[in-house]
């Protein structure tokens, strides 16, 4: 995988998730960060830090990105959400326009 095809998402605790850019762009917020020229440092480094999103939530979000891509390609499975994560995940989803 070429580096320019990936992005690094960094959680509040500093945990790094390297995922496909295509997957990350499922989030409207991340898409804006990566595509608006010059305005975000993220565009250059391919790195986005989320000081308000915990590792466990960010992992779930990355899973959703990939699930969403599969769904769009016709693989319509259930996306499991653990009840104890729902509210925190919801706030992150709201922020990420996902």
């Amino acid at each position, binding site marked *: 995988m070429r580096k320019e095809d990936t992005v690094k998402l960094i959680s509040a605790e500093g945990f790094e998730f390297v995922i496909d850019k295509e997957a990350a762009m499922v989030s409207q*917020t991340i898409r804006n960060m990566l595509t608006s020229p010059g305005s975000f440092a993220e565009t250059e480094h391919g790195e986005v830090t989320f000081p*308000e999103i915990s590792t466990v939530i960010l992992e779930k*979000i990355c899973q*959703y990105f990939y699930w*969403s891509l599969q*769904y*769009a390609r*016709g693989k*319509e499975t259930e*996306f499991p*959400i653990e*009840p104890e994560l*729902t*509210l925190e*995940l*919801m*706030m992150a*989803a*709201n*922020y*990420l*326009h*996902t």
Partner: protein
Amino acid sequence: MGSACSRKRDQLDNEDSLHRGVTRIYCKSGSSKWLVTTFSKPAVDMQRGKGQCPSLMELCIYKTREDIDRYKTFSMLPRDITQQIFNELVNSHCLTEVSLQAFKDCALQDLDLGEYPGVNDNWMGVISSQGSSLLSVNLAGSDITDSGLMCLRVCGNLQDINLNCCYQISDYGLQHISALSNLTSLSFRRNGTVTAQGMSALAGLVNLVKLDLEKCPGIHGGLVHLRGLTKLESLNINWCKTTTDAITDADMMPLSVLTNLEKLQISCSKVTDAGITHLKGLQKLSILNLEGCPVTAACLDSLSALVALQCLNLTRCNVTDDGSEKFSLLRNLKVLNLSFNEITDACLVHMKGLTNLESLNLDSCRIGDDGLANLTGLQQLKFLVLSDTEVGSNGLRHLSGLINLESVDLSFTEVTDVGLRKLAGLSSIKSLNLDARQITDAGLAALTTLTQLTDLDLFGARITDSGTSYLRNFKNLRCLQICSGGLTDAGVKNIKDLSSLSLLNLSQNCNLTDKTLELISGLTGLVSLNVSSSRITAAGLRHLKPMKNLRSLSLDSCKVTANDIKKLQSSDLPNLVCFRPE
């Protein structure tokens, strides 16, 4: 974190929306409870077709709904998220008095509980806990009482309250909202107990823009309390009457100072021409509904002073030719409904100059072919109703130049097949009602150029199998009715490929068999299907399985029982809510 939820105020305009009204009916019977969850799925869910991926936000909200018992409070969430959870619970009918508690002190802005089952005073604590955040509350159809309404006193920023069909609210209850001076919209339709005196509670609501008191029979004499509500733009006092009492001319007087009124509805009151004189000064009035009022053409004197008037409903009034020359003064009219008045061609002469007219309803008037000659200059005309008139084939030539016509109703006229040729050039026609016995296959043959047709009513027209071949030209048809008995399964072959159909009525065609259902099984867009009085049997029902959108199915007087349909409903037709036999 950003806000993803915008407040949808428009939905509150939809007082009569079928949506939850229907579901409430079904909630009351336990056996149909499953319908509640299937039929009332949230809007987002309905729109989500195959392949469209649900957002993570949606998935989380559905999950929250599923696990709602886990949550004691949502007050730590941003309000826009809480609002989405609330709406989801309401739309899916999962909100209960218990789960409601989690929404205490959530600073919610919109609580749309209109027609929601079980809402009563016990809900008011949580509702009022939204405090000054609450902008809009819909309690229509609830069991809220006067004392429950008292709770709203603390919601000082309320802009919009809907108390339609809240039968337990009286004059006393209205006092509790009399200080909510930020209110811009208030509705309490169908309240039988509020009196003229109770109306005094409204006097202080100086910011009211919209007031809806439809079917409140006791309010006559109380409109005097509205005099200070000069911001009022819309007032609905339709049907405020009993056998003895009604809105009268005297009630019109206080309205004369409400010069910002744009929309006034006083249908079925006892207002006469004398009362209408009080409206002369309403220079912004653009919509006036006088349906069923004992007014005559003499009121046109006053109405001609209303320079902004665009829509006028005079259906079932006492309008005659006498004085009808004043119609010519209403030059800005776009919509005119004169149905069920004793007017003749002599009245239509005065319509000539109403060149802005887009809609004209002459249903059941005594007009004929000659009268239509006066309509030739009305080039903006889109909607024309000539049902139940003396219009015949000769008159239609006067319509052939009205190239903007989109909807023409010729039901129960004397129009014949020959006359229909005059409409062949009007390719803008989308809706055509030809429900008349003398129309036959030949008439349909004359109309094949109308390829934009979406609605075609041939209910009583004598269409046979050979006539159906012309239907192939109408690929955009959404609604089709052919019910005069002349069709067999062979004719249905020409209907089976009309894939845009959502309503199909083939009842009274007693020769149709199960083969018909097999033929139309590919019409999966059908929402309503009627093949009553035919030879359909229970064995044919299996062909309906692909019709996942079907909400209404009528198979009366067929060899089909209610149980047969119920079986199909539970196995294959989740959206079916209305069926016969029942």
